[in-house]
């Protein structure tokens, strides 16, 4: 869990300054703004992963219950 949070924090620390600068703007506007589509697909992927992660946590709890019985 800690490792995961650390990874997320590192990712945000790395990308947030990029988003604040104008250079990412140029990046997203390059080659006909194709990267906007890539970013949207990535957002969907992250959403699905978060959903799976929550479900995983729930199932882990159930497994613990079965073990204890």
């Amino acid at each position, binding site marked *: 869990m800690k490792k995961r949070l650390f990874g997320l924090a590192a990712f945000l620390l790395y990308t947030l300054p990029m988003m604040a600068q104008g250079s990412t703007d140029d990046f*997203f*506007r390059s*080659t*006909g*703004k*194709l990267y*906007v*589509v890539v*970013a*949207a*697909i990535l*957002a*969907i992927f992250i*959403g*699905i992963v*978060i*959903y799976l992660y929550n*479900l995983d946590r*729930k*199932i882990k709890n*159930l497994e613990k*219950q*079965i073990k204890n019985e």
Partner: protein
Amino acid sequence: MSSIKKDWWKWLGVLILTLVILIGLLVPLNPGITQVSPSNAASGTTVSVSANGYNTFFTSAKSIRAWLKLAGDHALGAKSQEIISDNEIIFTFDLPQSLPVDQLYAETALVIDSDIDGAFVRPFALSINQKEVNVELGEQAWSVDKIHELTETNHFRYPFRNILVETIRNTYFHVPLWFGMILLFLGSVIHSIKFLRKPDELSDQKAVGFVSAGVLFGIMGLVTGAIWAKFPWGAFWSWDVKQNMSAICMLIYAAYFVLRQSMTDQDRRARVSAVYNLFAFMAMIPLLFVIPRLTESLHPGNGGNPALGGEDLDNTMRMIFYPAIIGWTLLGVWMAQLKWRTLRIESRLRE
């Protein structure tokens, strides 16, 4: 093997989505013009207009023709052309002394026709100013050249839209998420009604599963919409009516989970949340379909903009868009199913 037979729809959904992502990203856009300079000129002069093409192949074309087009049938052909590269070309026009209009300026569109790329247009490319109005002379001068025998191409391409350009592909990701969300919420409402007619734990669990997948789809719809909006609209969040209403809709559905967590009695919780789910669905319909149509909106299909149609969604795009709705919905049902199966095991263990 039996699981493949039983769960065929899951694999169908995955297959459709794989194809949607591949075809959605790989098929090129139609050629278009991204920039024209200069943007204005005086009548009676000779002007060299440079045009930047997108997905064009000027150097390999055998014949390229170009016109400045005014409203109606009036057009002026290019006198000469100079090809700089595949994506840049300069046309020279001899602008006549007069324009066939009753005002001192006119907006012209640049029409280019190439035997390889077909015909494409840049609206409002060059505005022409004149010192005196002489409609009759203008009529004569602008009626000599006619736009004719445009090349018809038969390529499988997505439309080129000036500001959208490649982001038009988001039609296969952002829009079907919302369609999927509505269908998931519809599934949830059906199970809530089932529960209210004949109380049964499984209906309640199914309703919860559908709502959680639907809310995830809605949040992903908001996020992908914000990412998309940044480039054509200029801001992640423009306080557009449809953005606001869908955010409110998400809050209403978020309250569904808060409501469930606030109650410990199983039967009561199932009954109250089923009634609340009906209310939330009824609230969603005016929020997403009625209010945005009543006021100004940046979204297509609202505030007098044409709905799914015109050049924003042509027949080529429909061939990917409709399967995309089916694919995303099937994936959502799968995610909902995983959720309610987990809930079912949880309640069995509790007994």
